[in-house]
C-alpha cells in the first residue's frame, strides 16, 4: 500500500490534476457561499462535463468542489448569519456572534483552518480505513448488504429535516422509481420506453432533482439578491498563526475531527450532524463555558473541523460496499460508474493507481482550499450578493447542457425537466429530496439483496434474525426510526400546547 500511496502523490501533483482541483475549489467556494446552492448542486451540474477528463482528474475535480463547498457554507454563516449550506448551520451559532463583535476575520480563519484540519483527518481516514474495510466487505453476504443499505436509508429518513412522515414519502418515491427497469428476476417492469430498460438514467435524474427545484425555489422566494453583507469590519488578527493558539485548541481540533470521521462513516448522517455533535461536545467540555452563545471561537473550530471531517469519511461505505451514505457520495459513485469503475474490493485491486491518486489528491485539494480560504474568504463572501437574474440563467443553461451531454439526446433533457418540476412540487409540500435520491440509488441493491438473501437462507427469519451483523444493522435502523417518531410526536404535543410559539 505504501508504494501506491507514493505513486498516488506523484500522480496527484500532475498539472492537469492540480488545475482541476484548483478550479474545483473556486467553484465549490462560490457554490457553498451562495445560500440556496450547495456543493451537490454544483457537482451535479458539472458531473457530465467530467467525461472529458481522465477518471482520477474528474473525481478529484468533484471532490474539490464538495470539500470547498462544505467549508465555504461557513462564510455567509459567519458574515451574514445565513448558512450557505446546511452543514454550516452549526458554525453560524458562534461565528456570526463573533462577526457582530468585530471578530469576523478571526472567525473566518478559525473556520478555514478547522475545515482544513478536518479535511486532512478525513482524508487520512479514507486512505487508511478503506482498504481493510474493502477486504472485510468480502465477508458481507446479501443479508448483511441489505441490512447495511436499509440502515443507511433509515438514518437518512429519520434525520430528514421536517418530519419523519415527509422523509418517508421521499424515500418511498425513490424506491418506487428504482423499480423501473428490470426486476431482480430479469423481467421488465414499467418500461414504457426503451430508454428506461436500465431504470432512470442517473445523471439527468440528479440534474432534474437537484438543480431545477433550487432555481424555482429562488424565483418563488423572489430573492433579487441572495443576501447583503452586514459585517464590514476586517480587523487585523493573528489568531492561529501562533503556536499558543494551536496548543490551546489542540484537544478541540482532535475531538471534533474524530467525531466528524465517525459520524461521516455512518451512512445517512454526514457533515450537518457531525457539526452539531462536535459543537455540542465543545460547549459541554468548555472551561469556562459562559462565552458560548456570545461568539466563542471554540464553537467555530469544533463545528467546522467536524463537518469537513465528515466529508471524505462518508466515502468509506460508498467506496468499499457501494452503499452511499449521502447525496454527495451518490454523485461521486455516479462519476466512478461513468468512468467504468465499480466500488468494492475490485476497485482497490484492479485500479489502485486511480484510487490512490484520488486519495492523495484529496490532501492537495485540502491545501488548495486552505490557501483560497486564507487569502480569499473576504472576496468569496461577495458572491452572496449576486443577482438572481444572473444566477438562474447560468444554472439552468449549464444544467440542461449537462443533461444533454450525458447521452447526446434530448430525451434526457426532457426527463430532467419533468423530474425537476415533479421534485419541486414535492418540495412545496415539504418532502425532502435527499431520501428520494438515496431511495433511487439503493432501491435496486435493496430489492436484489433481499431477494437473494431470502432465497439463499430459506426465508427472512434465517436470513436476518440469525445473522448477527445483519440483525444489528436492522435493529439500529428500527431504533433510529422509533427515535424519530418519538421526536415528531413530542414536537407535535408541544406545538399543540403552545400554538402561538410554534406559529411565531
Amino acid at each position, binding site marked *: 500500500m505504501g508504494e501506491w500511496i507514493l505513486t498516488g502523490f506523484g500522480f496527484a501533483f500532475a498539472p492537469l490534476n492540480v488545475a482541476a482541483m484548483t478550479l474545483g475549489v473556486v467553484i465549490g467556494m462560490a457554490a457553498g457561499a451562495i445560500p440556496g446552492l450547495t456543493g451537490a448542486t454544483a457537482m451535479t451540474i458539472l458531473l457530465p*462535463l467530467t467525461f472529458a477528463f481522465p477518471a482520477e482528474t474528474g473525481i478529484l475535480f468533484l471532490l474539490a468542489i464538495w470539500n470547498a463547498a462544505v467549508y465555504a457554507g461557513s462564510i455567509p454563516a459567519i458574515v451574514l448569519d445565513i448558512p450557505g449550506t446546511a452543514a454550516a448551520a452549526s458554525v453560524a451559532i458562534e461565528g456570526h456572534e463573533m462577526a457582530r463583535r468585530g471578530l469576523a476575520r478571526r472567525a473566518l480563519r478559525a473556520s478555514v483552518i478547522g475545515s482544513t484540519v478536518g479535511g486532512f483527518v478525513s482524508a487520512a481516514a479514507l486512505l487508511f480505513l478503506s482498504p481493510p474495510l474493502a477486504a472485510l466487505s468480502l465477508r458481507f453476504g446479501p443479508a448483511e448488504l441489505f441490512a447495511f443499505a436499509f440502515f443507511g436509508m433509515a438514518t437518512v429518513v429519520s434525520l430528514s429535516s421536517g418530519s419523519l412522515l415527509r422523509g418517508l*414519502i421521499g424515500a418511498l418515491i425513490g424506491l418506487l422509481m428504482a423499480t423501473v427497469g428490470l426486476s431482480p428476476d430479469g423481467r421488465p417492469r414499467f418500461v414504457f420506453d426503451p430508454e428506461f430498460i436500465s431504470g432512470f438514467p442517473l445523471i439527468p435524474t440528479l440534474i432534474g432533482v437537484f438543480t431545477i427545484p433550487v432555481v424555482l425555489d429562488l424565483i418563488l422566494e423572489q430573492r433579487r439578491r441572495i443576501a447583503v453583507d452586514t459585517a464590514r469590519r476586517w480587523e487585523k488578527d493573528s489568531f492561529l498563526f501562533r503556536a499558543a493558539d494551536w496548543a490551546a485548541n489542540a484537544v478541540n481540533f482532535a475531538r471534533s475531527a474524530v467525531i466528524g470521521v465517525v459520524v461521516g462513516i455512518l451512512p445517512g448522517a454526514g457533515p450537518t450532524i457531525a457539526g452539531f455533535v462536535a459543537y455540542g461536545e465543545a460547549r459541554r467540555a468548555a472551561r469556562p463555558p459562559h462565552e458560548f452563545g456570545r461568539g466563542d471561537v471554540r464553537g467555530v473550530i469544533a463545528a467546522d473541523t467536524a463537518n469537513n471531517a465528515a466529508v471524505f469519511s462518508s466515502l468509506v461505505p460508498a467506496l468499499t460496499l457501494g452503499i452511499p451514505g449521502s447525496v454527495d457520495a451518490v454523485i461521486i459513485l455516479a462519476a466512478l460508474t461513468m468512468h467504468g469503475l465499480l466500488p468494492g474490493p475490485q476497485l482497490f485491486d484492479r485500479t489502485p493507481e486511480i484510487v490512490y491518486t484520488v486519495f492523495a489528491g484529496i490532501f492537495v485539494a485540502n491545501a488548495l482550499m486552505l490557501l483560497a480560504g486564507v487569502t480569499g474568504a473576504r472576496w468569496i463572501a461577495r458572491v452572496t450578493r449576486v443577482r438572481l*437574474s*444572473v444566477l438562474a440563467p447560468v444554472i439552468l*443553461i449549464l444544467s*440542461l*447542457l449537462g443533461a444533454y*451531454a450525458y447521452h447526446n439526446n434530448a430525451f434526457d433533457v426532457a426527463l430532467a425537466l419533468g423530474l425537476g*418540476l415533479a421534485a419541486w412540487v414535492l418540495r412545496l409540500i415539504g418532502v425532502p429530496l435527499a431520501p428520494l435520491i438515496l431511495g433511487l440509488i439503493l432501491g435496486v441493491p435493496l430489492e436484489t439483496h433481499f431477494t437473494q438473501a431470502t432465497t439463499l437462507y430459506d426465508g427472512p427469519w434465517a436470513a436476518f434474525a440469525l445473522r448477527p451483523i445483519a440483525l444489528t444493522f436492522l435493529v439500529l435502523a428500527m431504533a433510529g426510526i422509533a427515535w424519530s417518531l418519538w421526536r415528531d410526536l413530542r414536537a407535535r404535543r408541544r406545538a399543540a400546547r403552545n400554538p402561538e410559539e*410554534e406559529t411565531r
Partner: protein
Amino acid sequence: MTRALPVALALVFALAFLATLRLERSLEAPFLYPQALLALVAALLAAVAGLPRRALAPIRVAEGSGPAGRRRALARVAGTVLLTVVYVEAWSVVGYFVATPLYGAALTALLGERHWSTVAALPLGLTVLVWAVLFEGLGVPVPVGPLGPY
C-alpha cells in the same frame, strides 16, 4: 400551502396503483413490491393532507409580499418553466448557439434585470464561454439543429 396539493398527489399515486393492477395481468411482471410502495405513498400523502394547518409546509415567497406578491412569484416560476420548454424545443430548430443567448436574455429580463447591458451581455458571454471551453476545448457535445450547433 393548501391541502389540495397533497390530496392531488395522493390521488395520482392511488390511480397509478389501480393502473398497476391492470398491468400485472397483462405483463406478468413482479409488481407486488411496487404496488405496495404506491399504496403506501398514496396513504402517507393523504396523511400529510390531514395534518393540522400549522404543520403544513408554507410556500416561501418574499417576506411581506402578500397574495399579489405570491401570484407574481408563481407567474414568474410558470414563465421560467414555459421559456425553458420553448428553449429545449428550439435546440432542434435553430441549434444550441442561437437558442442559448435568446433564452438567456429572455429569462434574465423575466427575472427582473433592468440593465439592458446585463440582459444582452450575460447570455452572450455565457454562450461564448460554453462554445470556447466546453464545446471546442473539452469536446462536450451540444444539441444541433438543421444548420448544425449554430
